[in-house]
């Protein structure tokens, strides 16, 4: 079988007709894979197009003011996205603030320090956590994080740092902080899992070279391995951020669902994904519906901007690892 294939390989000079190329499979594979790749592009385009068309009434009525006004009143048909944009960004950002040091730290332990056996056990558990549906996280948050926040964490923080605006105001338990912590718990497995993979992918020689030059274990990890795995770690953080931005169910269960802009992390807020999920099914007014669709477009834009910023960050820090 193999020999017949070998003998049928044409000489380089022989030109093949399109049909022959098709028969050989190259062209077919090419066509099919191009189509697959194009479908991603087409779906994105279609998505933006549909959102853009369907939010027409809202765009023409509010214009750019949609991004800068705070009122969300379905009865008066006044819609402004600012509190939702604020809530989405604040919860995602605070969640990253909590999850990144924890996640990267845990990944370093698992990849560099732990014995392979423990590393595998932990990794299995972490991947299990990543597969838990978000509504479960939301329920757990309601029954554990929220009472804990209301009765212990938030009063303690307020007692110690109450003079800071971020820890001021009445305490409900639900709010930005609870939502951020819930999100942090949800995105933490992604960061660990992918960061660990990229740390493991660092060639052994890199570590050995650093150690041979007299570096301690920590110096080799911090100055050689981490910079080398930088791209993968950034990747894990942005994937986690994307999940945090779009998370709906768990957030709506603990954020308090009030379109509110407050410097306090204890205050209640709202996120874009949460308001769409909450109000879409019962929205009867055309303007209300259109405003909700425009919020979807805003979320899409927000994700695009953050991803673009992420790419820039990677480009800006490129080469750092090799300078040491």
């Amino acid at each position, binding site marked *: 079988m193999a020999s017949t294939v070998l003998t049928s390989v044409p000489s380089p000079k022989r030109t093949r007709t399109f049909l022959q190329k098709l028969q050989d499979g190259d062209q077919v594979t090419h066509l099919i894979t191009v189509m697959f790749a194009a479908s991603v592009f087409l779906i994105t385009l279609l998505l933006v197009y549909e959102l853009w068309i369907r939010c027409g009434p809202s765009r023409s009525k509010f214009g750019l003011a949609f991004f800068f006004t705070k009122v969300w009143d*379905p009865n*008066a048909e006044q819609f402004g996205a600012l509190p939702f944009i604020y809530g989405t960004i604040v919860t995602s950002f605070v969640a990253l603030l909590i999850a990144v040091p924890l996640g990267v730290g845990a990944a370093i332990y698992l990849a560099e320090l732990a014995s392979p056996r423990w590393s595998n056990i932990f990794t299995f558990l972490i991947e299990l956590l990543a597969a838990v549906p978000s509504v479960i996280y939301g329920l757990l948050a309601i029954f554990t994080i929220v009472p804990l926040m209301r009765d212990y964490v938030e009063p303690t923080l307020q007692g110690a740092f109450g003079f800071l605006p971020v820890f001021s105001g009445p305490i409900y338990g639900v709010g930005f902080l609870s939502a951020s912590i819930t999100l942090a718990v949800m995105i933490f497995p992604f960061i660990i899992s992918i960061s660990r993979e990229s740390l493991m992918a660092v060639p052994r020689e890199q570590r050995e070279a650093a150690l041979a030059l007299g570096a301690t274990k920590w110096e080799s990890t911090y100055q050689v391995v981490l910079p080398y795995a930088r791209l993968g770690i950034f990747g894990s953080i942005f994937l986690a951020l994307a999940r945090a931005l779009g998370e709906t169910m768990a957030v709506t*269960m603990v954020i308090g*669902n009030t379109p509110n802009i407050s410097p306090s992390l204890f205050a209640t807020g709202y996120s874009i994904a949460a308001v769409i999920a909450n*109000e*879409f*099914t019962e929205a009867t007014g055309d303007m209300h519906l259109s405003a909700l669709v425009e919020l979807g477009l805003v979320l899409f834009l927000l994700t695009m901007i953050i991803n673009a910023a992420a790419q820039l960050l990677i480009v800006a820090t490129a080469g750092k690892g090799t300078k040491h």
Partner: protein
Amino acid sequence: MNKAILAILAAGGLLMVTAAAQSINAAGATFPAPIYQKWFNDYSKVKPGTQVNYQSIGSGGGIRQLTEGTVDFGASDMPMTDEQLSKVKVKVLHFPTVLGGLVPVYNVEGVSGDLKFSGDTLAGIFLGEITKWDDAKLANDNPGVKLPAKNITVVHRSDGSGTSFVFTDYLSKVSGEWKSKVGANSSVNWPVGLGGKGNEGVAGLVKQTPNSIGYVELLFAVQNKMSYGFVKNASGKFLKADFNTVTEAAAGAAKSMPADFRVSITNAPGANAYPISSFTWLLIPSKIDDASKRTTIKEFLNYMLTTGQKDAAGLSYAPLPKNVVAMEQKQINAIL
């Protein structure tokens, strides 16, 4: 052997074809979905081959799908507005099916008995004007009850819902200030409070948050054995919601029932009428071209108004009063 299998398959195929001919699609409100599912299921046994697919996607979705003509009929917890009606190609008839009530639920430190609320007080609390449990208005409604000097945490529904529509509709009737500042809708711009998703979200927040107040469907409070408060009705009597007082509200409103059944029965007259009550409606097109579909829908409506009403109490819905049933049976004839 093979022939037998083929015959069975063919027979099955034929059955499916006949079933498909009688298949009806409907979509809408989630609040009455449990009883609708039971009705449609029972009705398919009464009349074999009839299949009603009901998607409980929310009142807004039901109205939208009816307007676009993608379903045979819709269902909604709030009557359609004139503007919505004008967008549907054919005239839409409203058929009240069952009734629901809303109850105030609360969690106040040191209070174990039932609290009483007048409409004015409820509006004051949800407007954010009454901020403490020992406010003079609350004390006035509850003589002899020692209320704490604690801040009130208000909890409302965050998801758009017929429940919120009924509650805000009631507040609009009892408070001019509520009407002008907030108004009635499935989602409104709440002046104060936290939002909980669904009845369970509101109930959960109220249970967990000390000194809070919220509102849930009577059905939900009964099923979860939650205690709830009395509300003062239009004749000045404090009433606790149950199936009788809710049905009474509909009977009271029936005297002035408009011909199209688009009526709000919040704050209805009648000594025993519970004030935060509401109908939920099926939205049926008055012109159905497919004759067999038309017959099936008309027969189903008859079934719903007679046998179906007996299922209501078992599923914790309040049944329709007799005079409303009689009026609706006449309206069935208007479907052509």
